[in-house]
């Protein structure tokens, strides 16, 4: 590699974050459109939301793998060999595009741990964007909300259940209130019902009696 691995790593991190964010947003949109979680939809309609999700994923894949054509990086035309040891800095050619992203982590590619970190950030951001878009859609566009399966049930209307027909902002206080009310009972019940060899029971079991 004829370039500083740190520079390559920063470049890959930026590209990967965008890739992971767009694909996460697309995946969340497909999942919540199927599940009827309206509070997280980017558009007011399920079918449109689903197709938008698919489009986001395909666009992200195309951008990530074609970016070397217009962004300078460790894939200069003519220098892309299978091994990433002797790459030059520049734009890739069509012929070498498929292998351009295959850069060893010791030469600046992202290892599994770094990918996991960036992916987590991207997924959380995608959820936040979905929650904001869903809130705007429900509050401002005042979209019509037929009753969902969840709402017809009599259980608590918090978490994703509550987001079936309400915005994140209106559900969140109830979700947190219910969490604070339930967590003690849930914890003690879990310890009571745990196996005798359970680690948590052996640590907290006595104090929970």
């Amino acid at each position: 590699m004829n370039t500083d691995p740190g520079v390559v790593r920063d470049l890959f991190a930026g590209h990967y974050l965008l890739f992971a964010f767009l694909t996460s947003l697309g995946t969340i949109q497909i999942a919540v459109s199927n599940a009827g979680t309206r509070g997280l939809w980017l558009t007011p309609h399920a079918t449109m939301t689903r197709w938008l999700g698919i489009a986001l994923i395909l666009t992200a894949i195309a951008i990530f793998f074609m970016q070397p054509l217009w962004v300078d990086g460790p894939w200069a035309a003519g220098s892309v060999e299978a091994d990433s040891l002797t790459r030059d800095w520049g734009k890739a050619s069509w012929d070498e595009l498929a292998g351009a992203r295959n850069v060893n982590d010791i030469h600046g590619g992202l290892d599994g741990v770094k990918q996991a970190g960036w992916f987590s950030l991207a997924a959380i951001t995608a959820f936040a964007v979905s929650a904001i878009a869903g809130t705007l859609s429900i509050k401002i566009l005042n979209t019509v909300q037929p009753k969902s399966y969840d709402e017809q049930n009599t259980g608590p209307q918090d978490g994703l259940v509550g987001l079936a027909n309400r915005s994140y902002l209106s559900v969140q206080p109830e979700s947190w209130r219910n969490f604070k009310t339930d967590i003690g009972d849930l914890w003690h019940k879990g310890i009571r019902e745990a196996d005798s060899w359970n680690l948590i029971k052996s640590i907290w079991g006595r104090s929970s009696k």
Partner: protein
Amino acid sequence: MTSIDANIVMWLNGLSGTIPAFDNLMRIAASDYLMPLVFSLSMLGLWFSGKNPAQRIRYQLTTLMGISALSISNIVVWLFNITIERPRPFVEHGDELTLMFYSPTDPSFPANPVSVSFAVATAAWTINRKFGLWLYAAAALFGFSRMYAGIFYPTDIVGGAVVGISIYVFTTYLRRFLEPLITSFVRLIRGLSAA
């Protein structure tokens, strides 16, 4: 066994250059970024997919099991790697192989990417057979592409798959060891309206 293993890799890798488009497809499938992201997204999608509260909690607990199995697989593969230290095919048969991927520096057996892929695919399979089979196919393609590229033997792939599936099964037992921590964690995320 090593001879059969090497012959299969050399035969497969010998096909490279015949159809350039297929070679390019294998380079992208073997990438460090595409398939790992596919498996991460499958877990993210599963988290949000439940259509009623009971289904949702089941999917979310399975997602956590899948992610845990993925992490534990990495550790188990590393332990195998430092114990067995099997050289990569391109190290042992460099003259007879056309390397289509960068040369990894870690040992070959078992295949780490295949192991984590199969762990996640097994988690998905326990929820939805069809979805799980698609992910098994993706995991197999991931392993095949790396074998085609000359960086894994077939037994590395099979070993990785066995480790991944076994670790998922082990993780489901581990969950019983750590309850009610796992369920409480899901409850906390629900308190943030994300579960």
